[in-house]
């Protein structure tokens, strides 16, 4: 026991002696939490909107006015020609282009219907889909208004049926994105810091040659590993704590569930990450290799965690792969406990899988760690 304490003491000293690292461990992640949480939103607003009005009638002006009034669109210029407008679209200066043909108003009055051209920059397919919905909503409403104006007098038609939908947004009535992203980004930062630090640590001793020196001491394998990893576990829990405080104070993220449960889960989770870090350390010769591997898995873990894009939309094989992604479970648990107030019973599957993962990873890590080289 004493030996472990000495190792822990030594590791802490080493971490805190390196003044350059401290801001990277604590300040950089928290700064990112505060800043980047604002960036992560799929909301589509400030759509750059241009139009070509060849009709110049009161109806066409009224239609453009509708777009102008909408909060989603930033209405830009009336372009004099299609060539100029498409050039602007190529430059990325406009996202949505509305083309009102000549005789638009006349067609509407005489033929009872008129065509309207809409061009949407669809490089970002998801955004284009949303923009299309917005455009259609505005046009539909405009349509209805015209109908009302005309139909009031002779409303003898059969009344169409209408199914009314009432959307209820539970747990996040205002559809606030930050509430959703802050817990997720916090998870990432805790994971990245603990993984990178632990992944580099032992391989560093290997590279510098100090590991040999430790190997000739009477210290036991398990003592050494526990002593090595414990400080990172503490750092991880510390980051979580500061992160949660910032989440509450700055973003006012609701914390419906039990804090104890969150800490309980995190304490197991960090063990998984430390196990992975140690495992990487054992299989690499240089810090460079260790970091490439750690980076490789981190990028995959992040993008396949359901943090930014939903897991259900992935193909089945990819969904199966995410079962092996620790970040996935952490993200789920944080969001469930914090935002929905889920209890231990609800997150039991995640807890069990994480615990099993921790057990397997650390088993593998200890097994693959050779005291003799």
């Amino acid at each position, binding site marked *: 026991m004493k030996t472990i304490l000495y190792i822990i003491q030594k590791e802490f000293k080493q971490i805190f002696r390196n003044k350059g690292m401290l801001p990277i461990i604590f300040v950089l992640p928290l700064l990112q939490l505060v800043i980047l949480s604002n960036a992560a939103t799929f909301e589509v607003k400030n759509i750059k909107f241009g139009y070509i009005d060849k009709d110049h009638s009161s109806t066409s002006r009224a239609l453009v006015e509708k777009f102008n009034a909408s909060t989603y669109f930033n209405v830009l210029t009336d372009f004099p020609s299609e060539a100029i407008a498409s050039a602007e679209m190529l430059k990325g200066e406009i996202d949505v282009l509305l083309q009102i043909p000549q005789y638009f108003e006349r067609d509407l009055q005489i033929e009872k219907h008129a065509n309207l051209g*809409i061009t949407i920059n669809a490089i970002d397919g998801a955004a284009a889909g949303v923009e299309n919905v917005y455009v259609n909503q505005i046009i539909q409403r405009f349509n209805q208004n015209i109908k009302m104006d005309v139909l009031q007098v002779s409303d003898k038609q059969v009344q169409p049926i209408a199914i009314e939908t009432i959307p209820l947004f539970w747990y996040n009535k205002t559809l606030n994105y930050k509430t959703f992203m802050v817990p997720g980004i916090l998870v990432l930062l805790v994971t990245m810091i603990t993984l990178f630090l632990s992944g580099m640590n032992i391989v560093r001793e290997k590279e510098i040659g100090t590991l040999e020196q430790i190997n000739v001491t009477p210290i036991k394998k398990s003592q050494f590993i526990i002593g090595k990893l414990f400080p990172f576990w503490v750092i991880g829990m510390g980051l979580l704590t500061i992160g949660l405080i910032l989440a509450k104070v700055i973003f006012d993220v609701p914390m419906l569930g039990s804090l104890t449960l969150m800490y309980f889960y995190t304490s197991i989770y960090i063990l998984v990450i430390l196990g992975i870090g140690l495992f990487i350390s054992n299989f690499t010769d240089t810090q460079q290799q260790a970091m490439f591997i750690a980076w490789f898995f981190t990028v995959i873990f992040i993008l396949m965690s359901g943090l930014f894009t939903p897991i259900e939309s992935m193909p089945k094989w990819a969904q199966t792969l995410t079962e092996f992604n620790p970040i996935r479970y952490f993200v789920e648990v944080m969001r469930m406990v914090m935002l929905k107030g889920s209890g231990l019973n609800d997150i039991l599957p995640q807890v069990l899988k994480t615990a099993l993962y921790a057990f397997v990873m650390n088993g593998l890590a200890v097994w693959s760690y050779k005291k003799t080289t």
Partner: protein
Amino acid sequence: MKRFIGFIKKEFYHIFRDRRSLFILFGMPIAQIMLFGFAITNEINNVDIAILDHSKDATTEEIINKISASKYFSIHQFMDREADVETIFKKGKVKAVLNFEKNFSKKLIRDHKATIQIITDATDPNTANTISNYVNAILIQYQKDWNKDITIAYQIIPRTRMVYNPELKSVYMFVPGVMTIILMLVSAMMTSISITKEKELGTMEILLVSPIKPIQVIVGKVFPYIFLSVINAIVIVVLSIFIFKMPVQGSLFLLAMESILFIISALALGILISTISATQQTAMMISLMGLMLPVILLSGFIFPISSMPLPLQMISNIIPAKWFIIIIKGIMLKGVGLQYLWKETLILVGMTIFFIALSVKKYKIRLE
């Protein structure tokens, strides 16, 4: 010059001798691009929902069939009690519950009006909103079928054209993004580590007292990585063309030049990082912790920059990846040439010069 070439050769040997790193260096981007190209999409498909049908009549059944037939939803379960909605959400089993009111069919026939509640788990606002929109779209279609005998007077018919990506494939967003993170992080990380490694192990001192000029040391160290990154870029572009059918509407030559420019800017950033860090550990943490998230989040890779708050939009301007993503998408998807991309290109050139100038300055101070 001969000495310099000898030095570069040595650096190449160094890299190629380390088989494991080489494997990682080339294997990882391939694995990542394949995984992401196939797996990641921000479309919403097969969302699990539950149904709470208080009416259980022919109409609700028809609507439920329509919903379960769409590719967006799969019905996870039928529920009986409103009280269970909370439980099922807390377990995270379903994202939404459709709640049909009592006597749905009767009301629809008698009053021409009936109501469905769409209860969504809005912890994920995007999914919640999209679900609600999709259900509405299906219902509108259903009503249209029902109402088709009624002629509607006065109608504006929008003819929508999606340009540059008519099928709305999300892989067109992800390939340029993944290519950018790979080039950015691999280049910046590799250079910063390889230079600090010399410092940490003390071999830098030896290099500096050798007759090779300091600038040559740096260029010699960076050169092999330019070569490796270019190969990586080629592999990624070839994969995206042949496997993901990404078009290259514009000039391949321009794409190649811009990629090299971006690689050099990332390498310059790597050099800058190495001048401010004393150990490999610090260099890695700066390039991983400092670059990874900002590059993923602020470059327009996943989230649209125009929706961000203004200060963040301004910060995004100093992320080289943002400009490179605009350039790749421009060349590959829009097929535009330099006349449309000169601004972005100039910004990248400017950033590269700035990084290099700053590192040269820092580097000199360290030597004195």
